[in-house]
């Protein structure tokens, strides 16, 4: 018995020593690559081109930021709910993923000055009784939102009488509205506009903003003021240099025209 216990204790100790030795090695990254986290599932801001490489407004913005900082850039594609944890654990340096600045998020990460704004809008099934945001909070109304989005927070807070489904992907939400499984999908104006355009026979879009404008910011790990200050200077310079107009012309010329005609506010105004 004693021998057995000895063997176990010895092996346990040796494992511990090995782990400790392994821990001793420095885990720091050797190079100074700027690692940018984003969820490549929100065209045209964060998406992939036909080769599967990151592309879109945010990737261009990330590249320009890295150029400004004089560092090489690497874009990491991370699921939406994993973005903030990636910052916390140092897996990425900055998140540029059309993320709205909220008080809740501010508790966990630090945000840059806003670089864009968006508004929530409604994609509604044509047969639904919903005609405005006032019809939302009623028994029997089914509302879909994407998990972790500001629409998710809005629904949790304001739509206590409606049935709220929290889904993992934008596609699932749109599918449910198209099929009539849900009455409404709440998301930002651009997405709602585009999804409505591709599902004209089954959906209608209600573009009147249902709450105040949302400011998008770049997020860094809490306390990383050095990087944050540089990012703020970059955003100010980028704005005055007309960088955002160039991005609009490159990615969203048609939408910009439509939004202007309809009198909807633009992202970078």
């Amino acid at each position: 018995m004693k021998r057995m216990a000895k063997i176990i204790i010895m092996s346990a100790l040796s494992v511990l020593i090995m782990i400790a030795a392994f821990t001793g090695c420095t885990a720091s990254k050797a190079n100074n690559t700027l690692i940018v986290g984003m969820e490549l599932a929100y065209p045209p801001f964060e998406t992939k081109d036909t080769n599967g490489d990151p592309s879109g407004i945010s990737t261009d913005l990330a590249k320009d930021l890295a150029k400004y900082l004089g560092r090489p850039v690497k874009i990491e594609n991370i699921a939406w709910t994993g973005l903030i944890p990636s910052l916390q654990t140092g897996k990425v340096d900055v998140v540029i993923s059309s993320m709205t600045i909220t008080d809740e998020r501010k508790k966990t990460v630090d945000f840059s000055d806003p670089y864009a704004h968006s508004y929530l809008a409604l994609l509604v099934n044509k047969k639904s009784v919903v005609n405005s945001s006032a019809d939302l909070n009623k028994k029997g109304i089914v509302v879909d939102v994407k998990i972790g989005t500001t629409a998710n927070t809005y629904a949790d807070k304001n739509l206590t009488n409606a049935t709220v489904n929290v889904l993992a992907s934008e596609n699932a939400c749109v599918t449910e509205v198209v099929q009539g499984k849900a009455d409404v999908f709440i998301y930002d104006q651009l997405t709602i506009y585009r999804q409505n355009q591709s599902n004209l026979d089954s959906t209608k879009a209600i573009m009147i903003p249902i709450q105040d404008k949302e400011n998008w910011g770049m997020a860094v790990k809490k306390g990383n003021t050095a990087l944050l200050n540089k990012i703020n200077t970059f955003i100010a310079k980028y704005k005055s240099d007309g960088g955002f107009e160039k991005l609009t012309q490159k990615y969203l010329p048609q939408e910009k025209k439509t939004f202007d005609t309809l009198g909807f506010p633009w992202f970078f105004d």
Partner: protein
Amino acid sequence: MKRFRNPTVINKVFSALAVAVIFAALVWLSMKRIGLNLDFSTLFEYKKRLFDGFKMTIIISFASLIFSMLLGMLTAMGQRSHILVLCYACRAYIQIIRGTPLLVQIYFFFYIVGTAWGIDNRYIAGVIILSIFEAAYISEIIRGGIESIDKQEYEIARSIGLTDIQTLRLVTFPILMARILPALAGQLASIIKDSSLLSVIAVIELTQTTQEISAANFQMFENYIFLGLLYFILTFAVSMLTKWLEGRYKHENRD
């Protein structure tokens, strides 16, 4: 050799403790390496939602277990049928279900089949999907059980003059149950874990609850570690049940 086979209580306690220390040290060192401080206190405010999710996971798992047993039995018999169409249909069903990911099946059944036939309730759809999925595995367990029964048993049954029904009731069924019960209990553990995938169609069970909480409090690590713990409590209980059933099975076959 014998003393190794029958360890003393002190040895058992020592070994278990050593294992616990090694595992805990590994987890602790991993967290220390990335400088992670965990704070589980925020979970407390969600205790009602977590408990509801926990209940829903149990309800869905048990409902699916019952329906998948029924469907599993039918398809197991179907596989042995002499009507070739029925036999092929059952085999094709098992091949397709076991050969495709559950996630694909969930999306396919809910958004295409479910929509076509008007099954819009997520919970009912979820139980149906999970039952269809697990039944394919249970069917194979039952088929294996039936095939493992010695032909001699039937010969004896016939020689003592039992009718077909009597043979089924007194010979096939008791032997079959004793053989497959442990495997079925093990399958329940799989059902419990597989039910977490129903979160993709917003069935508010334990995983979906945790995802929703994570989206609100951003304490992803705490939430998911706690989620793992809750699932482990469920599956550990099932695993103990399986052990006990295995013991009974051995007992019944004792000479």
